[in-house]
């Protein structure tokens, strides 16, 4: 124990001491604020126990932006270390920790919650529902994510960060290669949030299949809804694989088993095989909703129906299923043989086909439209060339023998950052700008937004284009230092400059949000963009029951047709009587149960069995308590609905 206690707090690095101090100050600040303004009750009632999908969405959003900051700082630290050859800014160990946490955080604790934020905020509104299928489970998913992310980030100051790469290949991630608790933090942080992600996948799948507004057929759903459906299908098949893989790695580490070890007959390649069975579909999980966002935005701001709707739906469904059959392209170089490599090379290239089709459809949606250069549209237009080139380098990587030369080089790094930033991040940011007025009731400032847009974009190309060249020059990923001899220095310098430009872009966005809270253009209509789908038919921000009357849908682009009195669609339900609305009650169990998971995860990370068991017992008690709960819902009376609607300026 003494040994362990000594290594409990991470020591010896001024950067970390600085972080320690700032974490403590921030926490104290929050505590003082909440106590002084007597906000504890408010926090508990309005946020910690809420089952309202819109509030959960906002909590996801705030967490993901915080994680974007943390992951971004990691990136900048790495780029500073690599700007010049033979730099001594970071030690090898520290650098390894930083690229591990950068990757893990950006994918699992930034992209995923950002995506779930948009799911939560948009989907029920877009399909004309009052909530998701399982509001309680939805709150639980969020808190599981939150406590998982908290556990993972705790490793920064307690116990030491994981340092075996974002996918932690064994044998390096086994006990022999990484004896400290860092790797356990990785396992439990991801495991806990992963359960939440899986639940969200099931939740939104059922929501979309079962809770659409009366009359809305599958082939009349907005494309964002379709993209979420396809993403959820991929989630339910991919996330269980992650759960198993990490659990097995933990079994190896905790019980001394030999599943992925090099000794005792274990097979590390099996881990690589399994983790990519999740890892590859994962990139489609995050990019498919982005495709949906682009589809909505392109159509809205070209003032034109989306081109080739059926083709769009079909290609997303192909991607979501075919994405499951390409995982081996991440380890062509592990010698599975020419048969295996050829098969997976061709499936990988094939997935480029539906993706390419979507780009053409977006182009032809704009063709003969009227394109307004709003902020969401700018990010969408920036996405097309970026993703096009990223996709093309993806096809180049798919050619197995060519991959032997690109694998683990900076060419690969440049490729996936181009698809993940150019495809996913640009998409989510576009979505954020697009739906921001719906969430908060005001638009984000245009002028600062354009500064942010251009610094982000120029920064992106300056940062990542040189990395393609570095790949051709033989620079491999994850090296913490390099010499003058290879000629890598100038490109690295340029790349670092680009990374800092992107950082400045992020700062602009923070400023933009703060500025707009005060000065942003208020949205009183509920439909600031002249939208086409149902979320724009209700006030901004939406009342907590969303729709006073459930809309009746007669066509795709339902709201557009209602506004323009087409296909027999009337302005919705003006004449109808209000009826009491059935809503779920708030519950503290999701928060408490996830906190118990956190305790369990923390205990198991340090192999303090007692703490681990206590945490798991707490989880069990919460589950039973929920099972015994009976009055979990209530009705909003008509008077309250009337009052809310008239206060929002709607005719009663």
């Amino acid at each position, binding site marked *: 124990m003494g040994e362990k206690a000594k290594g409990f707090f991470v020591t010896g690095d001024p950067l970390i001491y600085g972080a320690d101090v700032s974490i403590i100050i921030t926490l104290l600040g929050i505590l003082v604020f909440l106590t002084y303004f007597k906000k504890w009750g408010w926090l508990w009632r309005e946020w910690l126990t809420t089952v309202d999908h819109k509030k959960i969405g906002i909590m996801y959003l705030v967490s993901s932006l915080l994680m974007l900051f943390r992951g971004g700082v990691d990136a900048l630290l790495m780029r500073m270390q690599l700007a010049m050859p033979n730099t001594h800014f970071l030690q090898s160990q520290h650098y390894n920790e930083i690229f591990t946490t950068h990757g893990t955080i950006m994918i699992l604790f930034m992209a995923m919650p950002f995506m779930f934020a948009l799911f939560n905020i948009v989907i029920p509104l877009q399909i004309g529902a009052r909530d998701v299928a399982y509001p309680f489970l939805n709150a639980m998913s969020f808190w599981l994510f939150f406590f998982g992310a908290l556990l993972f980030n705790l490793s920064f100051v307690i116990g030491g960060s994981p340092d075996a790469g974002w996918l932690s290949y064994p044998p390096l991630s086994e006990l022999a290669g990484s004896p400290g608790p860092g790797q356990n933090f990785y396992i439990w942080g991801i495991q806990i949030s992963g359960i939440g992600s899986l639940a969200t996948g099931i939740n939104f799948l059922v929501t979309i299949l079962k809770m659409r507004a009366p009359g809305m057929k599958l082939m009349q759903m907005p494309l964002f809804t379709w993209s979420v459906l396809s993403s959820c299908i991929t989630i339910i098949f991919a996330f269980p694989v992650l759960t198993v893989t990490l659990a097995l790695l933990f079994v190896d580490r905790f019980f001394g088993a030999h599943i992925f070890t090099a000794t005792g007959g274990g097979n590390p390649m099996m881990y690589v095989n399994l983790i990519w069975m999740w890892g590859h579909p994962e990139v489609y999980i995050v990019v498919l909703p982005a495709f949906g966002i682009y589809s909505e935005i392109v159509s809205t701001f070209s003032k034109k129906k989306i081109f080739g709707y059926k083709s769009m739906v079909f290609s997303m469904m192909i991607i979501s299923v075919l994405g499951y059959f390409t995982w081996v392209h991440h380890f062509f170089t592990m010698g599975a043989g020419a048969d295996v490599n050829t098969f997976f*090379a061709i499936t990988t290239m094939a997935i480029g086909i539906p993706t390419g089709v979507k780009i053409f459809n977006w182009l032809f949606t*704009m063709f003969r439209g009227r*394109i*307004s250069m709003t902020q969401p549209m700018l990010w969408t237009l920036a996405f097309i060339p970026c993703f096009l080139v990223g996709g093309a380098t993806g096809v180049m990587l798919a*050619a197995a023998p060519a991959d032997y030369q690109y694998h683990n080089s900076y060419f690969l790094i440049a490729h996936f950052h181009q698809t993940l930033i150019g495809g996913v991040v640009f998409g989510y940011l576009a979505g954020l700008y697009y739906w921001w007025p719906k969430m908060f009731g005001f638009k984000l400032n245009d002028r600062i937004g354009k500064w942010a847009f251009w610094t982000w974009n120029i920064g992106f190309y300056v940062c990542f284009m040189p990395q393609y060249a570095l790949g051709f020059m033989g620079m491999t990923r994850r090296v913490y230092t390099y010499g003058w001899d290879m000629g890598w220095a100038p490109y690295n310098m340029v790349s670092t400059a680009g990374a800092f430009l992107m950082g400045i872009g992020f700062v602009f966005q923070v400023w933009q949000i703060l500025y707009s809270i005060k000065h942003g253009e208020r949205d009183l209509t509920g439909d600031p963009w002249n939208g086409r789908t149902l979320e724009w038919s209700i006030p901004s921000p939406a009342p907590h029951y969303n729709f006073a009357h459930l809309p009746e849908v007669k066509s795709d682009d339902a709201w557009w047709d209602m506004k323009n009195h087409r296909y027999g669609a009337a302005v919705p339900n003006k004449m109808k009587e209000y009826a009491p609305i059935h809503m779920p009650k708030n519950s503290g169990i999701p928060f408490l149960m996830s906190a118990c998971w956190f305790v369990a995860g923390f205990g198991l990370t340090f192999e303090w069995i007692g703490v681990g068991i206590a945490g798991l017992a707490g989880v069990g008690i919460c589950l039973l308590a929920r099972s015994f709960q009976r009055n979990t819902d209530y009705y909003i009376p008509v008077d309250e609905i009337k009052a809310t609607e008239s206060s929002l300026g709607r005719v009663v």
Partner: protein
Amino acid sequence: MIKPLLTVRLWKVAILAAGLLLLLSGCDRRYLIFNPSGPVAEKELHLIILSAVLCAVVVIPVLGLLIYIVYRYRDKPGNKAPYTPDWNDSKILEIVWWGVPIIIIGILGVYTAKTTYSLVKPPVEDVKPITIQVTSLDWKWLFQYPGQKIATVNYAEIPAGVPVQFHLTSDQMMNSFWVPELGGQEYTMPGMAMRLWLQADQPGTYYGSGANFTGKGFAHMKFKVVAKPQAEFNQWAKQVKKTAPALTEAKYEKLAEKGLAGKQTYSSYPEKLFTETIDRNGGKYMKPEMKHGGHDMSMMDHDNE
């Protein structure tokens, strides 16, 4: 027959791409992948160029189209371009953009398959190949020459113009063996003996590195591959045999400890060192399947003996 058929056919495409590559690289020697120094790297470069050209065929027109559309149909008072808010379907256009990518992927798929299968064979058939056994350690490379019975650390000498079959394994973490100018990489995996064919056409010194992260000292896992004319190579091997110390079990143990090492040369090594390393790390389970070819998808070839 030194140049395979593929080369000839791709030559024209390569010239087309040359302009692009010139812009990118200036044919600088520092761009290792554009300076193939052996048949394997050359084949891979051809595939890289082919795939780049095929992608460019789509990417460049689409970029042009994007700029045109965004400019022409921007929402500006007085824009006279046609506006058809409900036009959302065209069978012909859909066929074009499902069809073109399918054709392109078809072509690339065929060449990919061909190259993949050709790389598991020796680059040239009429020269007797040599074998070098490579073990990645934390954090250094051990090369054993079963033909010459000598061993080196962190550098390898090979005869130019002779195909070399590298047998790759790892005694610790998974790494990846990469000599970009000679050809693509292959993982070194504990318990497995991976085969990688490489060949240097000309004498020279080639940069090699580990490409898969192995922990603290990973960045320093670099090595040189020195190609010499056969006679000089033989001379070198003989010299090593005469003058260098022997690699004993004890010395190997020491070498295998985590840490960095400089260049080393040994006149001999424990005879079964390589196979024992593989077996110790689980290699014994791989053997029966290797002989089978193991195409059976059922579990039949996993029978208990």
